[in-house]
């Protein structure tokens, strides 16, 4: 078990046949996620300032405390599920964390009262809903063919069907949209910088972890 990742495994945390692990690659991703989690925990949201042309006047967008608290909670939950997706050793848990990240990404911007942001979040939410099924279908195909969902065991069997990997990849595209940030540009008009950043960080890290899983399994 773990021939490929054993060489550079830094941490193993076995729960029965499911072994959570950190390799040299994922430890960097996890560190990145922890860094942004702490950033979201300690910092206050930035306030966008618009300078009025021709004068020296400016508008400042205040963020109400209740919205700030909600965004912070969602961002922290998003960071924690990102760390979960990075460290987990189980395909099913990975799909669940991916779906969490999808829902929480909408949650971060859901309280913002800006029509463009809400429009974008709604369309993105529809994609998230659609992406749930390929993720679960991929996990179901893996367990139907290989009889296990543990990444460590799947390395041994070396029989993960390509179609399952593709299904999970489509699902991750939908949840995180990692290479296709363009679909979420409108969302980032929402004020509240360190929390909004968590949307990008989580989808990027989720995608990088997916690559790791596909190269390992």
């Amino acid at each position, binding site marked *: 078990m773990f021939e490929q990742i054993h060489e550079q495994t830094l941490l193993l945390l076995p729960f029965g046949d499911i072994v959570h692990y950190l390799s040299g690659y994922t430890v960097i991703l996890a560190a990145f996620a922890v860094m942004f989690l702490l950033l979201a925990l300690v910092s206050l949201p930035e306030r966008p300032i618009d300078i009025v042309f021709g004068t020296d006047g400016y508008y400042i967008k205040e963020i109400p405390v209740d919205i700030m608290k909600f965004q912070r909670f969602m961002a922290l939950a998003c960071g924690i599920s990102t760390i979960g997706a990075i460290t987990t050793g189980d395909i099913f848990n990975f799909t*669940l964390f991916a779906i969490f990240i999808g829902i929480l990404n909408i949650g971060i911007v859901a309280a913002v009262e800006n029509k463009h942001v809400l429009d974008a979040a709604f369309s993105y939410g529809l994609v998230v809903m*659609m992406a*749930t099924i390929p993720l679960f279908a991929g996990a179901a195909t893996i367990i139907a063919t290989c*009889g296990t969902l543990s990444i460590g065991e799947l390395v041994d069997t070396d029989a993960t069907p390509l179609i399952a990997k593709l299904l999970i990849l489509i699902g991750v595209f939908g949840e995180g949209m990692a290479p296709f940030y363009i679909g979420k540009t409108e969302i980032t008009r929402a004020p509240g910088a360190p929390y909004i950043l968590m949307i990008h960080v989580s989808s990027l890290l989720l995608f990088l972890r997916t690559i790791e899983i596909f190269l390992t399994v």
Partner: protein
Amino acid sequence: MIEIPLAMPQIYTIGIAIAFFTIIIAFSSILQEKDDIHKMIIIDLVEITGLVVIALIATDLAEALILPGLVVGIAEIMAISELWLAKENLQQKHSAKKLDIEVMKTAPPIIGAMLTTYGIFLTGFSGGLIAALGLMIYFFGKNVDVPFAKIENAAGYAWALWIIAFLIFMFIPSQWFLATMLAAVGIMLKVMAKMSLVGTMRGAE
């Protein structure tokens, strides 16, 4: 007697083909639909047909993925419909007009109490469902304030009961009967709290 001349594997293959066909139909309808709320409903439909595919993979373990699929789907549709309400500015802000129906004051507590007692007597998942139905009928009546916070508390304690039962199963297996009873009561309370809360949600407070 009608005999179907097909072996089970063939039936599953045909079923998967039909399910994929329905998925294609559902997706093509998304392309044509322009209205947001209709899109959302159609996507829910796509999700259900996707779950049919998972069901037709036909391993017990794979089928265990259907339940999380359903739960996650419901959570997502609730979140996104809230978002849609906020987006379209449709949250109810003014209070409703009142009808004076006498029977709404008397009947719901009686029926609710009967159903809840029967549910508690049944315990387990189905008992929780029936008790939740009783509570919902009770909350449906007039002059009732729904104690949301208390119900949420009860759900929390039920969860704790469930975990305790789980730990007993793990560490003191000889006490399995106690653990079963704890788990049954726990899941009854949990389902009851969840269902009655979902059933009585009346928009943003």
